[in-house]
C-alpha cells in the first residue's frame, strides 16, 4: 500500500475524511430520526428494546450479583452498628403491633361476617411472580429497573410491581426472560390513587425526584401531612389498597407524597398478576384501552 505514489495518498486523504464526515452526519441524523420514530411509533421501538433487554439480561444477571452482595454487606455493617437502637425500636414496635394484631383479627372476623351477610362480591384474587432487579436506568432522565422475569414467567405489560414496603411501579416493557418496571417516581408514571382518610381520588404523578405529586383531587379536599395514600384500583390494572406513601406537605390542592419504597435499595420485587373478571388487552397501561367484551361487572 505504502509503495504507491505519495500523490495518490494525498488525493485519497480528503476523500476518506469526506466519507468519514458523511458517515458521522448520517449516523447523527439516524439517531434523531430514531427519536422521532420512537415518539410516534412506540410499538416497534418497544419490540426492539425488548430484544436488547433479553439479549443483555444474562450478562446483567451475572454482573448484578456482586453488586447486590456488596450492598448487602454494607447494609449488614450498618445494621450491626445500630443494633442496640434497632432492638429497642423493634421491641417497642412489636408491642404496638400486637395491639394492632388483636384489632385486625377482630375486624377480620367482623368483616367476614358482614361480607357473608351482604353476599358481597369478592375482590379479584391476585397471584405473584417474584423477580430480581438486574439493572437500573442509572441515567438522569428516566427511573426504571430491569427484572429477570419476562413473559415466560407470566409477566405482562401494565401489571403492578410491589415489594414489602408498597407499590414500586408498573411493568412497562416485557421481553421473554426480562422486563422493565417504570418506577412510581418516573416522569411518565401516572397511578390512580386515593387518600386513605377521606377516600378522595387523585392521580399520583412522578417527576424523576423522590417525591410524588397527588393531583386532580376534587376541590376542598381535606388532607394533611401524614395521610396515607394507596392505589384506588380504578382502571382495573392495579389491585386496590396497595400502600404507596404518606403525604408530606400540601400546596395548591396538590399533595406531595413520600413513597414507602426506597427505590435505591430495590433488590427483589413481586409482580402482581391481578386476576380480573374481564381480561385486559395487552397494552392496557400505556394506551388506556380496555376490553369491554368481558362479563358485566
Amino acid at each position: 500500500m505504502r509503495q504507491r505514489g505519495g500523490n495518490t495518498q494525498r488525493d485519497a486523504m480528503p476523500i476518506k475524511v469526506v466519507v468519514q464526515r458523511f458517515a458521522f452526519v448520517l449516523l447523527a441524523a439516524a439517531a434523531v430520526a430514531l427519536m422521532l420514530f420512537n415518539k410516534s411509533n412506540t410499538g416497534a421501538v418497544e419490540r426492539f428494546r425488548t430484544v436488547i433487554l433479553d439479549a443483555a439480561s444474562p450478562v446483567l444477571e451475572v454482573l448484578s450479583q456482586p453488586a447486590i452482595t456488596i450492598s448487602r454487606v454494607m447494609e449488614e455493617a450498618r445494621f450491626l452498628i445500630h443494633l442496640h437502637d434497632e432492638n429497642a425500636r423493634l421491641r417497642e414496635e412489636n408491642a404496638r403491633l400486637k395491639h394492632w394484631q388483636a384489632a385486625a383479627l377482630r375486624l377480620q372476623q367482623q368483616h367476614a361476617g358482614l361480607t357473608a351477610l351482604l353476599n358481597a362480591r369478592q375482590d379479584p384474587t391476585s397471584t405473584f411472580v417474584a423477580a430480581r432487579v438486574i439493572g437500573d436506568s442509572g441515567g438522569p432522565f428516566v427511573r426504571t429497573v430491569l427484572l429477570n422475569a419476562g413473559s415466560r414467567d407470566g409477566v405482562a405489560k401494565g401489571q403492578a410491581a410491589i415489594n414489602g414496603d408498597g407499590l414500586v411501579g408498573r411493568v412497562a416493557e416485557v421481553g421473554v426472560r426480562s422486563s422493565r418496571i417504570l418506577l412510581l417516581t418516573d416522569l411518565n408514571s401516572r397511578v390512580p390513587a386515593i387518600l386513605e382518610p377521606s377516600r378522595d381520588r387523585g392521580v399520583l404523578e412522578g417527576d424523576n425526584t423522590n417525591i410524588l405529586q397527588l393531583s386532580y383531587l376534587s376541590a376542598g379536599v381535606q388532607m394533611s401531612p401524614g395521610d396515607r395514600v394507596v392505589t384506588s384500583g380504578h382502571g382495573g390494572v392495579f389491585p386496590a389498597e396497595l400502600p404507596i406513601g404518606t403525604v408530606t406537605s400540601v400546596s395548591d390542592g396538590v399533595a406531595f407524597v413520600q413513597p414507602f419504597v426506597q427505590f435505591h435499595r430495590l433488590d427483589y420485587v413481586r409482580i402482581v398478576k391481578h386476576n380480573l373478571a374481564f381480561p385486559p388487552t395487552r397494552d392496557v397501561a400505556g394506551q388506556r384501552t380496555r376490553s369491554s367484551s368481558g362479563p358485566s361487572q
Partner: protein
Amino acid sequence: MNSVAWRRFGIRLRLLTPAALTLAAVFISVVPIGVSGLPEVTPFFTLMAVYHWSIYRPELLPAPAVFILGLVQDGLTGGPLGLFALILVIVFGLVSMQRRTFLGKSFQVEWFGFSLVVLGATLVSWLISCVYFVTLVDPRPVVLQGILTLAIYPCIVWIFARVARTALRPSE
C-alpha cells in the same frame, strides 16, 4: 499454518479491546449498586470510553460501532431511543477530528477537553429530553451525573490505558 491462523485471530480479537471496554461501560452503567447514600445516577462511563478511544484509537472504535453501542445503552436505560447514540456519535465525530490537539499533551489537557465534552453532552441531552418529554425535566440529576463523570474520569482512563497497553501492545 494453523498456528498462523490462530495468531491472526488473536490479533483481531485484541483489536476489539476498545469496543469491548466500551460495551462493558454500557453494562456497568445499568448495574444496580443499591447502596444508600450513593447518588442514584451513575457516571456516564460510555462517554468516558468514547472520548478516550476517539483520541487514542479512533480506527478501532469507528462511528457505526459508537452508534450501535449508544443504541444498546438507550435500550437498556429505557430513555428515548437514539439519545445516547446521538450524543456519543457527536462526541466521537468532534473529538476524533480534533484528536491532534490532545495527542502527546499532558493529561490535564485531555481532562480539560473532557470537561468541555461533559458540559456539552449534559446540556444537549437535557435539552433534547425536555423537548422529547415536552416538559421541564429536573436538571439536577444530569448535572450531578456530569460532575461524577468528570470526577472519576482519571480512574477509569487509567484502567483503559492499562488494559490497552496489555492487549494492544505493538506486536502486529
